[in-house]
């Protein structure tokens, strides 16, 4: 075992910066990262044991005990639940004779839940040894469990492949693209290398100016002007880095999955253009672990582009050197936050940094770094190719261009739609075939729960900003239980724990919602939930804690009657139970549990 561990450490150049990769390799090799392995890694890398342990414990896909030979990670996000996850859970548990969170006695199968794996358009979905299984139902579970018992390789259980590059020999996945509407920017006509060649003749400053004048704003959700970010970074001294954020973790978004599958060249080209613009030599694609099934394919695309001289040394003979490597995540939503993503890429816990300094000043290894979303890079390619004026003709005044929407939930045609900014929710619902809609969750759990009275609002950064996640909630759903409670449980799991309010209030608020759902809450609880959410938003360091009370605050604002119908009209209640509170100590000191009142 030791030799294997040492070999893995060697393979990553004994660099502490590659700790996450090392731990991923260990997890794959031994199905766990044991305490013994932690010690070896620590001493070999010159780190303390605690350094290694804290990184390990941060990520969802590292385990201390070995996972099963077949490690099932079933998505328990809201849409998975809406699409019948309970049946899938029941069937797995029945056939395996264990509950979720357990492993069969023979070590063959382990069952666990995981947060959204980017398959909301084809739920319920699961990862089994990193292979994606979509559209699960009782019958499919029966087939999968039977195949596991026969000891078949997981890959062989995938019999039908999805469309497009999902059927590529290096992918061979059952995932479907579900591209329902291709727009002119990201999913339209594309010729690899054209924009990069144009950039190299334009000069770096002109590239930044073009992106700025197109008013390209970050597609991850925050909407920061990309050109400005590039300009800030270009002005800083040091070895600059280009990061592409493919840690698509917001439940309900899966449009980057489609871009990674169908527009990998375009994304890489956008990174190279950005590299040229800011004067960087190195780019890193931060790929969420859930998209591991795309890694070999994405590596191959890199190789092809190197062969075409679109990456590597002296690109297109213009003396520009730029190359890209892929950095895997290991299961942590908060790593989608840019400074957490950088921390994670440095082999550490993915905890957001204090700002300033901003990543453009001190990012990866304290060097100036830009972090942009997959879609942002793809959009930049088209801007360079067709010009800012062309791009600005689309969208609204403050939000130019198009947006990829990942639409899922209660609608006839879930999938990816490339639309111009400015579309109203009404129009969107007509487009996806949704009827009897109770609400639309815009931009995932951290976004806004929009009621029908506001369906005339526009999807645009100045009205309803969105990173792309759109979850349609039908009238038949229990909004508080199916959506709000699920989202709060998600945030409770995913808070990195660094800020005390985020660490505590997400748990406390989840419990409050649970009280409402179970009919145990009272009226003042509703005001408390609102106030506490505001405190958390004000006192958290990063976007997670600043937005994680949104499921509660936006439903309290827009659907208060649903809460009021479930709470008791009392101004105080106590959960204190004297009998329970004295039982343990009376037993310990051997006295009858009698309270004289």
């Amino acid at each position, binding site marked *: 075992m030791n030799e294997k561990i040492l070999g893995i450490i060697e393979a990553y150049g004994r660099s502490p910066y590659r700790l996450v990769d090392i731990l991923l390799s260990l997890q794959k090799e031994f199905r766990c990262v044991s305490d013994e392995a932690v010690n070896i890694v620590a001493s070999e890398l010159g780190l303390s044991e605690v350094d290694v342990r804290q990184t390990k414990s941060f990520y969802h896909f590292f385990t201390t005990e070995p996972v099963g030979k077949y490690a099932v990670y079933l998505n328990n996000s809201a849409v998975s639940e809406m699409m019948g996850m309970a049946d899938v859970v029941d069937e797995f548990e029945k056939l395996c004779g264990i509950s979720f969170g357990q492993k069969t006695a023979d070590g063959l199968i382990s069952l666990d839940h995981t947060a959204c794996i980017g398959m909301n358009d084809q739920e319920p979905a699961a990862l089994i040894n990193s292979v994606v299984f979509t559209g699960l139902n009782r019958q499919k579970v029966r087939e999968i469990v039977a195949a596991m018992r026969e000891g078949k390789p997981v890959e062989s259980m995938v019999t039908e492949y999805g469309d497009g590059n999902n059927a590529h020999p290096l992918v061979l996945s059952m995932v479907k693209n579900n591209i329902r509407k291709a727009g002119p920017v990201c999913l339209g006509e594309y010729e690899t290398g054209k924009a990069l060649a144009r950039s190299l003749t334009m000069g770096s400053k002109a590239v930044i100016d073009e992106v700025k004048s197109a008013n390209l704003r970050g597609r991850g959700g925050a909407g920061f002007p990309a050109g400005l970010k590039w300009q800030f970074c270009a002005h800083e001294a040091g070895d600059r880095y280009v990061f592409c954020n493919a840690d698509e973790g917001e439940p309900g978004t899966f449009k980057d999955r489609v871009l990674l599958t169908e527009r990998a060249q375009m994304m890489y080209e956008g990174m190279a253009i950005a590299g040229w613009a800011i004067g960087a030599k190195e780019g890193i694609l931060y790929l969420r672990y859930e998209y591991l099934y795309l890694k070999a394919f994405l590596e191959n695309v890199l190789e092809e582009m190197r062969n075409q001289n679109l990456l590597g040394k002296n690109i297109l003979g213009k003396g520009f050197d730029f190359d890209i490597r892929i950095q895997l995540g290991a299961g942590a939503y908060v790593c989608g936050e840019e400074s957490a993503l950088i921390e994670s890429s440095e082999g550490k816990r993915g905890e957001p940094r204090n700002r300033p300094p901003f990543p453009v000043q001190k990012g990866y290894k304290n060097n100036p770094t830009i972090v942009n979303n997959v879609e942002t890079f793809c959009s930049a390619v088209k801007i360079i190719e067709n010009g800012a004026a062309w791009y600005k003709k689309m969208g609204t005044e403050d939000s130019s261009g198009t947006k990829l929407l990942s639409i899922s939930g209660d609608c006839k045609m879930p999938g990816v739609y490339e639309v111009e900014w400015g579309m109203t929710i009404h129009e969107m619902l007509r487009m996806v075939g949704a009827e009897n809609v109770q609400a639309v969750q815009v931009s995932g759990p951290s976004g806004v729960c929009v009621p029908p009275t506001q369906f005339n609002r526009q999807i645009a950064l100045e009205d309803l900003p969105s990173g792309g996640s759109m979850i349609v909630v039908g009238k038949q759903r229990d909004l508080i239980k199916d959506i709000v409670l699920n989202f709060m449980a998600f945030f409770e799991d995913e808070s990195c724990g660094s800020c005390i309010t985020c660490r505590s209030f997400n748990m406390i608020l989840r419990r409050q919602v649970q009280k409402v759902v179970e009919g145990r809450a009272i009226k003042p609880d509703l005001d408390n939930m609102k106030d506490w959410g505001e405190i958390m938003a004000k006192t958290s360091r990063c976007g997670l804690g600043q937005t994680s009370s949104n499921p509660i605050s936006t439903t309290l604002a827009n659907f208060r009657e649903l809460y009021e119908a479930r709470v008791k009209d009392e101004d105080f209640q*106590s959960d204190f139970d004297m009998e329970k509170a004295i039982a*343990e100590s009376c037993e310990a000191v051997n006295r009858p549990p009698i309270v004289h009142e």
Partner: protein
Amino acid sequence: MSKPIVATASLAGCFGCHMSLLDIDERILKLIELVDFHKSPINDIKTFTKQCDIGIIEGGCCNTENVEVLREFRKNCKILISLGECAIMGGLPAMRNGIPVRECLEEAYCDGITVGENTERIMPNDEELPIILDKVYPLHEIVKIDYYLPGCAPRADLIWEAVVALVTGNELNIPYELVKFD
């Protein structure tokens, strides 16, 4: 109009909040003009004989007697104030909350290094004694609390300003420094 009546108690606390109350110095003379005191360790009145207006409670609830006193205060006071960290959050005594109560008792009476000989492992269990609760509870988890005055101990000025505002009906106007602790 008669003066408002104030009652106070210290539960699972250290009496520091009451000491802080006495730190109002000469203002205690003004206080006596403003209010009357009923049940309180300050005057040693032990039982409620009339309805009070304001109850001020220091300390959380660690045993059955604390709960009983607290409930009695709720019954006899129109307004209840949680005074200080222990009353509001459990405070220092609540550090035992993560440890099973049996372990705490065994450490205190049998196994701790400062325990003398206790070979029979006797632990106090006379029925006259209050019973230790499984954990230390903040007051608001047991009865409704109207106001909270934070601090360990809350500054004398904070207690003074709050009580005066409550009694006079004036707006409570306290400088940020009075409730800022870092």
